[in-house]
């Protein structure tokens, strides 16, 4: 026994000395890189040296990591040949990494071995993480580039984006790319987006002469009315607590987070505590529930044919097909309709936007970076691809001109609240184009999102007799968890 422990200790000492050696060699590398990348702070946009010759036509292979299922990969596979008609020497390889978090984890690991892909699906939080490693290509110099590129058809175009192309992007989506520093360096281009919508049981609303709420006050009134009509129901289901909290901050104009490194987490303030308290009261009244609290999908409650029901759901437009009314003998039991979620100020609505953007990673071969830019530009500005991808995914396209595409128009026109909610949700997402906002993205912003979601849940169900102080404590805990994680 004793021998064993002693020998183990010996092994341990051995390992420790090896550590010392290993760390020495790594120190060298670390400081070198530091030298190369120094001096990037301040308020100027981060530059990137676009090769003066633009794309020189050389043969390169670029890889694209995403989280598309089999169906969407099929769409991508039909448009890569279209891209190759313009640039036959650029080979595009792509692979699904499961879900968004899978893409992030994969890339984080790949970066450690210098084996990252060229292009990836990303959320702002992910880019903030990659930015710590200074691995993402800032796009401003590409966007502004006036270098002429000649494609295989002989046509010429600029490497960057034209003023018309930039104006074609839905502004809220485009602005997401600038959420990373105070100078507004652009790191991503939007790929495909969803938003939140208020789904409501149109048949029930009409039968009972209810008004679709546009403000939170109206929402409270409608909940009260519905509760009188059907005392067993929970009038409103909200899918994502985190979205709820963040959207409320935006609507009230109260602080959530900031890019200021000394004070990232600002969400513990009077306004936020009071709206959390208000929704706690709603929960106590039996007006509202969330997926986590209810214990099942709120869409299940919305489409229930017997037992408890809800008549409104605020959820992602990406999940529209789940809010489809149930059918009995080929007849829908009710009709679903959609509206912009309630607002603090309906004159200046604010709704959250979600869904992937695209970022490009640095590479030792500048031609790979340029080729990646060309492909990203293709995916985000090609009307046919954006239309096909939107129809297959139920997510909104990121450029406005897609709506003029005849095939797409036809698809949108087929929208109805009985068996084609997907098109209806995209229509709504497009109509809210001016309402999207962007939260700051920094290393730790994903923790803030997780924490406010938990906070919202806990506050809603709290049974503490002194609810104000309980909510205060929850806020303090959330901030301290955020600060610990980002410290």
């Amino acid at each position: 026994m004793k021998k064993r422990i002693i020998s183990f200790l010996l092994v341990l000492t051995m390992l420790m000395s090896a550590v010392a050696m290993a760390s020495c060699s790594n120190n060298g590398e670390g400081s070198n890189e530091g030298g190369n990348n120094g001096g990037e702070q301040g308020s100027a946009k981060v530059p990137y040296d676009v090769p003066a010759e633009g794309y020189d036509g050389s043969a390169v292979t670029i890889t694209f990591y995403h989280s598309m299922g089999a169906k969407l990969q099929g769409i991508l596979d039909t448009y890569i040949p279209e891209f190759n008609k313009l640039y036959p020497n650029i080979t595009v390889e792509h692979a699904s990494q499961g879900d968004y978090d899978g893409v992030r984890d994969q890339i984080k690991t790949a970066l450690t071995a210098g084996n990252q892909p060229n292009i990836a699906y990303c959320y702002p939080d992910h880019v903030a993480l990659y930015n710590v490693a200074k691995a993402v290509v800032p796009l401003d110099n590409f966007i502004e580039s006036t270098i002429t590129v000649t494609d295989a058809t002989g046509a010429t175009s600029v490497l960057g984006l034209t003023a018309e192309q930039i104006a074609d992007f839905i502004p809220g989506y485009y602005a997401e790319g600038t959420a990373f520093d105070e100078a507004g360096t652009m790191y991503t281009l939007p790929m495909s987006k969803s938003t939140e919508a208020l789904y409501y049981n149109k048949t029930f609303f009409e039968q009972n002469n209810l008004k679709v709420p546009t403000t939170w006050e109206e929402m409270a009134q409608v909940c009260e009315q519905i509760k009188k009509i059907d005392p067993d129901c929970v009038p409103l289901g909200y899918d994502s607590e985190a979205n709820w909290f963040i959207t409320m901050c935006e609507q009230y104009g109260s602080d959530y987070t900031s890019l200021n490194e000394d004070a990232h987490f600002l969400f513990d303030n009077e306004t936020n505590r009071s709206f959390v308290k208000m929704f706690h009261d709603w929960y106590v009244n039996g007006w509202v529930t969330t997926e986590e609290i209810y214990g099942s999908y709120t869409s299940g409650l919305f489409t229930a044919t017997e037992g408890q029901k809800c008549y409104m759901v605020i959820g992602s437009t990406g999940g529209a097909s789940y809010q489809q009314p149930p059918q009995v003998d080929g007849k829908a039991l009710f009709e679903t309709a959609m509206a912009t979620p309630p607002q603090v100020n309906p004159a200046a609505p604010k709704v959250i936007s979600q869904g992937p953007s695209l970022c490009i990673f640095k590479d030792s071969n500048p031609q790979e970076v340029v080729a990646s830019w060309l492909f990203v530009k293709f995916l985000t500005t090609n009307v046919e691809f954006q239309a096909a991808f939107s129809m297959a995914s139920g997510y909104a396209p990121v450029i406005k001109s897609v709506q003029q595409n005849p095939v797409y128009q036809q698809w949108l026109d087929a929208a109805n609240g009985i068996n084609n909610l997907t098109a209806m949700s995209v229509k709504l997402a497009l109509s809210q184009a001016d309402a999207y906002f962007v939260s700051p993205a920094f290393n730790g912003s994903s923790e803030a999102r997780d924490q406010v979601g938990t906070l919202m849940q806990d506050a809603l169900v709290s049974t503490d007799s002194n609810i104000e102080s309980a909510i205060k404590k929850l806020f303090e805990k959330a901030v301290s968890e955020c600060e610990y994680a980002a410290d």
Partner: protein
Amino acid sequence: MKKFLQKIKFEEWKAWIYLAPAVALLLVFTVWPIINTLRMAFWEDYSIMKELGGTLGNEFGLKNFEKVIKYRGFIDCLKNTMLLTVLTVPISTILALVIAVCLNAIKPLQRFLQTIFFLPYVTNSIAIGMVFEAMFNIVGFGTSNPSYGIINNILGVFGADPINWINAGSGYWQNIAVLTIYIVWNALPFKILILLGGLQSVNKQYYDAAKIDSTPRLRVFTKITVPLLSPMIAYVVITGFIGGFKEYSSIVGIFGDDMQAVGGESLNTMVGYIYDALGNQEGRASAAALILFAIIFVVTMINMYVSKKKTHY
């Protein structure tokens, strides 16, 4: 030097040749990562992304350990880890032993039941997480007409009130009970397999002797079966403890990524903490892993000491 080489017995060379493939692979894929873990643990504020970005300092010390220990949830993580291990290892081992012995004692249906007890292996983990949630869930908890999961319905048959196992406002001990059941359930097939394998290689002569003496069943169990199986039992207990300390996937499976029931206490464990920190605080994750390692090491040494005294070869 020559003399030294001659001194080494032939058998030693042989042993090292047999061990060579295992040792070589372990050096590359286990020992080297451990060394790397040590490097990250003692490098202050280490994060891989920072190292790549060149913004990492050059300070070495115990700062990462300090951060871990001073974390407000650290004691909770430690407590949950300990509690789950202490609860699940004995329960699952005894249950698996009883099932294995019973399976070994019957003739008709033995093959069929063996096959059934194997089924969890071919059941994908995605399905397992879902079913457990559905079994304990209460849909619409706190509303006027909740619907109860299977477990509460069974309790209802015996006249008991429904218990809030995992939903909003559920208590800590209810949560722990669900986790214990889940972990035990998960561990059973493996343990049954090992113990049944052990039982079936036990020499039948011992039992024949007992039959002639018409020894009572319980005595056969405690005096023959358990001692003969002791190496296998030691194996499942020791590995069970190690596995228990590394528990976290079950909690994510039932309570989600944030590892707490709605409005409930944190159910996070040590490995859960490590997993969180691996996001972008690899230094802290490594330090926590070493702390966990120290705990498991001590417990395993105690286990080995006890089993050496009790194991009958």
